[in-house]
């Protein structure tokens, strides 16, 4: 067997010329966005700028009216794939408000998320192996929930739910992680832990973080994309974009 050197790729996700209209309102307007396979990116912008809608498009929840979205080293269009297929292709998503299965235990939540076959038949006859147990334990440990595995997710505090959701994301082993406002409802200490975790994760995968908290963004220390009215207003280092007069006017100045 000959080993073939993996092709060097410059972008993992490529969104180009995408527009979405809701009842005549253009939420995303000719948006283009690229991220590399091991990159951390912060996305900021005023309320209603289209940040969440952008994630909806990438994850297949919302279909754009025009434009292309491709993913992977052999670029594959995501537009014809279902949400579940996109998720299986390696796109993980964390929602703005924590969405865990509240009626199920922490470990059940994690087991659901563990990367594995998803077809009904395979899941029906799935049996937990020692390896799975170890993975669940390690994930719980990573987010500080090791003592809460048997508890129902609904009993956790808001911050703990956020952590559980992050652990579920990690369990999926995604190659692109979309994180919507992770710091909401977290304590100062938890925010620091979160930034550290996101920076660490971005060493092995692409991570897009939407956040309003500027301190949080600063600590991420990465390239920033500013969205406004559905398109990119500015892009660059945080210092660079915060000096941009337009950004100051629409976002920071308020």
């Amino acid at each position: 067997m000959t080993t073939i050197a993996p092709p060097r790729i410059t972008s993992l996700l490529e969104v180009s010329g995408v527009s979405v209209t809701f009842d005549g309102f253009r939420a995303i307007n000719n948006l283009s966005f690229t991220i590399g396979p091991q990159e951390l990116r912060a996305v900021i912008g005023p309320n209603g700028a289209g940040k969440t809608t952008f994630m909806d498009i990438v994850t297949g929840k919302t279909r754009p009216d025009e434009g292309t979205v491709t993913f992977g080293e052999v670029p594959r269009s995501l537009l014809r794939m279902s949400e579940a297929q996109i998720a299986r292709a390696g796109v993980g998503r964390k929602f703005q408000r924590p969405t865990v299965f509240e009626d199920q235990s922490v470990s059940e939540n994690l087991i659901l998320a563990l990367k594995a076959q998803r077809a009904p038949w395979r899941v029906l006859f799935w049996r937990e192996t020692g390896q799975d147990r170890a993975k669940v334990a390690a994930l719980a440990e990573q987010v500080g929930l090791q003592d809460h595995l048997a508890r129902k997710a609904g009993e956790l505090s808001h911050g703990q739910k956020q952590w559980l959701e992050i652990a579920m994301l990690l369990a999926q082993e995604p190659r692109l992680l979309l994180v919507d406002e992770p710091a909401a409802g977290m304590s100062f200490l938890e925010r620091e832990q979160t930034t550290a975790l996101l920076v660490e994760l971005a060493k092995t995968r692409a991570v897009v973080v939407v956040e309003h908290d500027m301190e949080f963004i600063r600590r991420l220390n990465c390239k920033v994309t500013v969205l406004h009215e559905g398109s990119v207003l500015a892009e660059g280092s945080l210092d660079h974009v915060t000096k941009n007069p337009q950004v100051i006017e629409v976002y920071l100045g308020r």
Partner: protein
Amino acid sequence: MTRTFLARNPSVLWFLAALAIFTLTVTVLAEGLGLGLIPTAFVKVLGKTLCLCLVALAMDLIWGYTGILSLGHMAFFAVGGYMTGMWLMYARTEEIVVQALAGSPIPPTPDEVAQGVATQIFGVVGGSDLPAIWSFAHSAWLQLPMVVLVPALLAMIFGWLAFRARVNGVYLSILTQAMTLALALYLFQNDSGLRGNNGLSGLQNLPGLGEVPQSSLSIWFFLASAALLALGYVAAAFVTSGKFGSALRGIRDDEQRLRFLGYPVEGYKLFVFTLTAVIAAIAGAFYYPQAGIINPAELAPIASIYLAVWVAIGGRGRLYGAVIGAGFVSLLSSWFTGGMAPSIPLGFYTIHWVDWWTVLLGLAFVLVTLFVPRGIGGLFDKLPSPRRHGAQLGPDDGALREKEADA
């Protein structure tokens, strides 16, 4: 592996033990094999009740666990009944025809027998030919697989169309009712090939067992129904435990979230819908021989609504709840509507339970929904048991959830 299955489902052992004791007690007391304290008619009622418990299990799987309020599962139940009914009626009629022709000087040809059977069965709707859908009815080996195949196909087609279009919540419930109504209206027609509103009758007679008295047959059916319920319970516990059960409850609570975890939600819904349709059909296949007759009124839309009421009263989202609900309410219902409950004279008005039972049931449903959302089965939670805390499954949490995970 078995140990962990039972450890995760402690209710399975309890349920099987309770069912075994009940079955044994009835068998010993019944007319057929035992002391004769329970009349045959009541043995049949109990056997039928066990079948209703089985279809309630199916309803709990689809509604209580997966959150799809199907109001069409009694249609699958009835289809299962029709499928066995065709074989039973054909075989029984064939015996009669052969007997009648036995006296003739020339022994009848198979064609003559078949013609005789067709005339016997379809004379009542003015026909004398066997419709094409009866092609398999002469053979148990051909006809009985239809108990599973026909409802499975129906459920697959319906489910594929509905789930692929992402019909959810109330809209799906209405659609299942429409399917039920359409099927009933079709069967009511005389030229449906299933004898219109006459339905199929004489189903209590098993071919070749003419000499066996009903008192014995009824016990056999009762035992078969109990075995089937036991099997169904174990199967349902298997499906609802482990990761698959987790996924089902995930669909119920937040299907969009499950999609983003990579689960093909539509595939799961189709799988459960079809599986429960088959369970319902098998239950029906054992119910109607005990009832003796089936007609299109059996799949009136209201029957499926009753099924939902039983499961709600028993406590959805737990298997024993569904069984308790169906058993308790349907027995109570046959007591009230069978004229056995004493009327209550109020002087100015007499309460006849035959008329007022539905009102009482409706009231009970509303009260349970409002005040005991976990149903009768929920009372078991009061017993010391492993963790069952956290978010309640209130009345609006389960099936009728329309709101999606909006990010």
